[in-house]
């Protein structure tokens, strides 16, 4: 049979661990299970489309597949804000997994993406954590911080009282190094390490600002429909399996990276005091309600989330 080639635009640069572990993995698995009939041609961040443009490109069928952060699709998908992370909701990664896969949040996301001829599949769930030049030992410490942030978290941090500011990725290292900002988040430990942030900021702040499905695969429905009998299922199954494998692998690598930077670069873990955490959690809940207003579906998802968190005894 003819081989089919898909162009896959990643939002990860080549040096990102996810490029290797997520993207190259799925390529290997899909090519193996289709006996080489479906080939994935991988493109690093920005090669064909910038991250913000990838959803549109896949939706139009210009390229067949891509990876994104759901934030980049938020104007299309009203659930994207929830998918890319409500602050201080989950406390453990497994809870986010359970919410996505067992409580049906992933299905809701798929339903919304399908309206744009896109098949949506979360790559993994993981925490977003801050690095800081100064430790946070009190509410005053927190309020005094200039934090490089973006998107919903910037709004949240600003509302909570810190000075949230946006600095583009290209200027982040410089800004943190010279003190234009005091703290920043770029993924968690692996992300910060990949940007060299621990060279200039020695505190790794916990707990996570959010835990969420911040990386996702998107596939053109048109491209899926064109596949020979049974192949679409192979692709979808491979993506579902990927979620579980990558979520625990990523968590493992987070721990390893954190241990490494602690040992080699003198990074210290800074756990925010309980009263700071409590105050942040309180502000966070307001932003959840904001997200719920985006659509009926969003309201339903936030309700579901609150129920789940109540069951866990967090609310």
């Amino acid at each position, binding site marked *: 049979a003819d081989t089919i080639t898909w162009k896959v635009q990643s939002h990860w640069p080549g040096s990102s661990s996810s490029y290797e572990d997520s993207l190259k993995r799925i390529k290997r698995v899909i090519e193996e299970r289709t006996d080489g009939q479906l080939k994935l041609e991988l493109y690093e961040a920005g090669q064909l489309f910038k991250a913000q443009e990838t959803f*549109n490109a896949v939706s139009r069928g210009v390229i067949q597949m891509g990876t994104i952060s759901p*934030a*980049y699709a*938020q*104007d*299309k998908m009203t659930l994207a*804000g929830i998918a890319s992370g409500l602050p201080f909701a989950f406390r453990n990664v497994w809870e986010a997994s359970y919410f996505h896969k067992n409580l049906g949040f992933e299905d809701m996301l798929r339903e919304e993406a399908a309206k744009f001829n896109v098949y949506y599949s979360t790559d993994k769930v993981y925490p977003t954590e801050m690095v800081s030049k100064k430790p946070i030992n009190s509410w005053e410490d927190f309020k*005094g911080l*200039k934090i490089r*942030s*973006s*998107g*919903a978290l*910037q*709004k949240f941090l*600003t509302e909570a009282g810190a*000075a*949230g*500011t*946006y*600095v*583009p990725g290209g200027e982040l290292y410089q800004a943190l190094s010279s003190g*234009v900002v005091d703290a920043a988040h770029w993924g968690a430990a692996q992300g910060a390490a990949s940007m060299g942030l621990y060279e200039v900021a020695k505190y790794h702040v916990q707990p996570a600002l959010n835990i969420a499905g911040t990386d996702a695969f998107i596939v053109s429905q048109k491209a899926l429909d064109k596949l020979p009998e049974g192949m679409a299922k192979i692709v979808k199954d491979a993506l579902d399996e990927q979620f579980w494998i990558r979520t625990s692998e990523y968590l493992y690598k987070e721990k390893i990276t954190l241990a490494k930077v602690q040992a080699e670069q003198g990074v210290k873990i800074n756990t925010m005091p309980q009263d700071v955490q409590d105050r942040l959690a309180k502000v966070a809940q307001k932003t959840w309600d904001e997200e719920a207003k985006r659509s009926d579906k969003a309201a339903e998802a936030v309700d579901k989330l609150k129920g789940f968190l109540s069951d866990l005894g967090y609310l």
Partner: protein
Amino acid sequence: MSFLQKLINGVTRLNDVLGRWIALLVFVMTALLLLEVVCRYLLNSPTVWTSELTQFVFGVYAIMAGGYVMAHKGHVNVDLLYSRFSVRTQAIIDVFTSVLFYIFILAFLYFASSMAWESFQGSETTYSAWNPPVWPVKAFMPLAIVLVLLQGTVKLLRDIAVAINPDNALVLKDSIDDGTEEPH
């Protein structure tokens, strides 16, 4: 003055006048960035909107420059061989190469319009803390391309006229020539 010259002048003037106004945006960009420095460094309360607004202003500034630069013959080319040809040969070559110009500009126009329209329909926002709508900026893309297209088209008409009769080169000016200005 011939109808063609009037047409050329009209389009060139349009680009020139628009450009003179848009050129002032450089003050806006400077002011926005300085404002952010003051807010963040002196007042310790960075704004959520300045850097993004600067970016927007810059995008408009950069894309809208296309027509103005063309009206002033400012898009650089390689004149190594080209400058040795006669005026008529140059015009004939320009008519030929304009095919590539149109291919680029029309493809860009179609997809930029579709992009801007999609942004408007879906009320696309930037998903930042400020979260402004994107379509007003995207809409400048097709507008800017149309201006370039107009300037390119009057240039093509002039080239055709010159290719037919080289004497036309003397009477038809296709741009505002500020290239003779030596630096002071």
